[in-house]
């Protein structure tokens, strides 16, 4: 396209961008204090050299994908091309006024979608009458229907992204910049936006697309630019560059999680390199030294570790993870710091080998092992001492998501989690249920996960109902559990995606009585979005790295934090 007379649309010459970031407020963990205040902890401007000496020329009709791992400077580069971030050195020239379509392009949330169409399109340089002319087309393309008259604060992130896409493309910009937005929305909308982009390129626009997905870039672009650590690594035909990028990704040590990420005030991230370290780190942020008890469970079988969570919440004790053969050094360090009166090792001798127990005893700890026949029996043994009538939550062993939801529910109603095996309910689990004589039994999973025979076997053992809970998604389930709390304006809400990161976190959330919500990597699902709006947290804590919850999403989450937006006008108090 446009090969006959290649006319440049964007020229980037030796671009360098260094920007200041402000540290996050340390509001938990008590590490700040007066000392922190005096030192100005996290307040001093820190600088990030995000883009280093990048040069290229883009032409009309081209579609250019920008690839690179998190924190490689992709978004910063695009913002500079859009003229939104001034270069620290070097220059950017462009044809007309480039339009940026980004996930974080928040318009006026308190106003309706319709008002935002006028604000957005006029900001992009259209006149009121020009907006009048394309208004219906924008509404139609955004597929919002009557929602267009509701405030944008009621929209899900997908709906907001659709509207932004519709506004940005309605102005037929000479240069259109799309930042991850195509990942939002359903397949149908993706297909339509794909069409719209092809159409814009036909009209000699240049399209820039930032994506983590090599496939999206291959699909939509004819040229790719690969950035790493702010440096331009390669620039050329899409297949060549993406192949090289993927080869580098397979061959080297880098992972999508090791890149630096700007701080987001009000949204902390608690994460370390693996689940063992994350668990130890999480514990160290929330528990004082000298606890009565610490639960240890195997990191390979999270079902057992998660089923331990309600018991740990009752004991106000952390759950830490160990390997089957060794105690990972971070876990040992955290155990030493906590110096518990007793370590409860949850798992039989195949899950956690006797060598682990021995090494803990040698290190001077008092260890009590709770075990039964396999994981199901072990968890049943753990439920030994609970009072009569305690609610039981039954989840299939191995389905970690279901077990996590069961654990969240059990924390809420002070119940226990029991596990079913592949061949139904083992005898010792049935015995445990018989002993407890629960008022209710909730079964997490459909008939494939937990067969109907299980329900039949359990029913005579309870004096109440056996309910099967079919939860459409983990996120929705977490939102439901949180919603039953009917809290609002809470201090903290915990956010997670990967189950491995959340074992210790679930205990902390349970003890604190704080909600734990599950999200997607790049998106806040609708139900969670609604719940977060309702909760209006003072701050958020993310369990997991950039690989499980993207930096963009973290940025987006900041919008839910109460007080992140300046209050309007003066209060009566301010009048005096």
């Amino acid at each position, binding site marked *: 396209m446009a090969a006959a007379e290649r006319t440049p649309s964007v020229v980037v010459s030796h671009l360098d961008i260094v920007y200041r970031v402000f540290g996050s407020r340390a509001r938990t963990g008590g590490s700040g204090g007066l000392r922190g205040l005096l030192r100005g902890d996290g307040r001093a401007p820190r600088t990030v050299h995000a883009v280093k000496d990048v040069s290229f*020329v883009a032409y009309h009709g081209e579609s250019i994908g920008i690839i690179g791992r998190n924190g490689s400077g992709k978004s910063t580069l695009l913002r500079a091309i*859009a003229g939104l971030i001034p270069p620290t050195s070097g*220059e950017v*020239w462009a044809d007309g006024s480039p339009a940026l379509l980004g996930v974080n392009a928040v318009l006026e949330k308190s106003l309706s979608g319709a008002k935002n169409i006028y604000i957005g399109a006029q*900001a992009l340089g259209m006149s009121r009458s020009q907006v009048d002319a394309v208004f219906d087309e924008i509404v139609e393309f955004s597929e919002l229907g009557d929602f267009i008259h509701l405030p944008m604060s009621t929209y899900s992130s997908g709906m907001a992204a659709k509207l932004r896409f519709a506004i940005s493309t309605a102005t037929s910009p000479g240069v259109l910049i799309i930042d991850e937005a195509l990942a939002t929305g359903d397949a149908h909308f993706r297909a339509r936006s794909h069409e719209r982009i092809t159409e814009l390129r036909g009209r000699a626009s240049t399209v820039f697309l930032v994506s983590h997905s090599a496939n999206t870039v291959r699909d939509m672009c004819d040229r790719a630019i690969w950035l790493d650590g702010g440096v331009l690594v390669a620039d050329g035909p899409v297949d*060549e560059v993406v192949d090289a990028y993927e080869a580098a990704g397979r061959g080297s040590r880098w992972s999508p999680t090791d890149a630096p990420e700007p701080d987001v005030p009000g949204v902390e991230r608690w994460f370390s390199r693996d689940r063992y370290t994350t668990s130890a780190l999480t514990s160290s942020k929330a528990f004082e030294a000298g606890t009565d008890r610490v639960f240890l469970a195997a990191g390979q079988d999270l079902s057992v570790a998660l089923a331990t969570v309600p018991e740990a919440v009752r004991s106000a004790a952390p759950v830490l993870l160990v390997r089957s053969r060794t105690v990972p050094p971070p876990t040992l360090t955290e155990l030493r710091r906590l110096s518990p009166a007793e370590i409860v090792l949850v798992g039989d001798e195949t899950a956690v080998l006797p060598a682990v127990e021995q090494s803990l005893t040698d290190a001077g700890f008092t260890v009590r092992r709770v075990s039964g026949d396999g994981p199901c029996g072990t968890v049943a043994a753990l439920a030994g001492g609970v009072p009569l009538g305690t609610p039981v939550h039954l989840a299939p062993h191995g389905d970690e998501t279901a077990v996590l939801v069961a654990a969240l529910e059990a924390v809420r109603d002070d119940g226990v989690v029991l596990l079913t095996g592949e061949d139904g309910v083992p005898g010792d689990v049935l015995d445990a249920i018989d002993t407890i004589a629960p008022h209710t039994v909730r079964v997490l999973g459909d008939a494939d996960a937990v067969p109907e025979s299980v329900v039949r076997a359990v029913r005579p053992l309870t004096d109440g109902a056996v309910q099967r809970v079919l939860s459409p998604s983990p996120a929705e389930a977490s939102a439901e559990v949180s919603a039953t709390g009917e809290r609002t304006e809470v201090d903290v809400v915990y956010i997670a995606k990967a189950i491995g990161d959340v074992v210790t976190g679930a205990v902390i959330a349970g003890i604190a009585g704080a909600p734990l919500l599950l999200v997607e990597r790049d998106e806040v699902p609708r139900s969670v979005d609604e719940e977060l709006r309702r909760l209006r947290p003072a701050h958020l804590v993310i369990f997991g790295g950039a690989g499980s919850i993207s930096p963009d999403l973290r940025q987006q989450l900041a919008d839910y934090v109460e007080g992140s937006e300046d209050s309007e006008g003066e209060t009566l108090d301010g*009048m005096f």
Partner: protein
Amino acid sequence: MTAAPPGTDAARALAERYGLKALAARPPLSEYLRDLWTRRGFILTLSSSRSEARYQNNQLGRLWSVFNPMLLILSYFLIFGVLLGTRRGVDNFIGFLSIGVIVFGVSGSVISSGARAVTGNTGLVRALRFPRAVLPVSVGITEMLANLPAFVILVVLMLASGERPTWAWLLFPLALVLQAVQIIGMALIAARITHGSRDVANLIPLLLRLLRYTSGVFFSISHYTANLPAAVGYVMEYQPFALQLTIVRQSLLAEYPLGLLPWVASAAWALVLIVGGLVFFWRGEASYGRG
């Protein structure tokens, strides 16, 4: 993989040949002002939407834009008129106080929200490219629009407190326009200073409080400055906030006869502040959005 990108000079030559514009560079002032003027529709949309949205989460909605100033006037009346008795030297104290509270209230909120016009709108600033002066200017217009009901209330209170319409009342809108121009100028200045150092934002409430008590909101300045050196009294009476109150009082209150000097001084302040504000804000244009 592809041809090496052109060097600095070649890149510039290429950009110039095809008429590409340097995005980050600060445009010349004349171009900036022209650009700002072409966005006047955007400024109006932004301002009117925001002023409409102000009370949308309250059940009584826009009625608050009437209740708020009334309640404030009432509470100040109780404190200053009844308890402290600062009404000395003023015949129509209700009229005097209402003008002070409402007119100064508008200036105060424009300056405190104007200071956050850039730093508090990072979403908009990072998403869309437009002359950033749109933001502080729109703060001023938003506030004037949101206070239209309060200005009407002011006229009603004048009638209720015994004033009778005179030709001078026609100058009331002019006084508001002069005020709007002055405070938009100040909002532009405050927005750039706050963007440069966010800490300054913490001093603004203090500054406003100081001004509230020295600009003649609750009591006649001349009554209290009689014993002070003439120069001090002069400064206190001819600073823009005091003048804003004086000219509105001259137009609406019979006991304050029209005088040319305050109006000329006010117009001069308006000119100085808007020109100074625009130039000062424009000089920082290339830095907004970073950090």
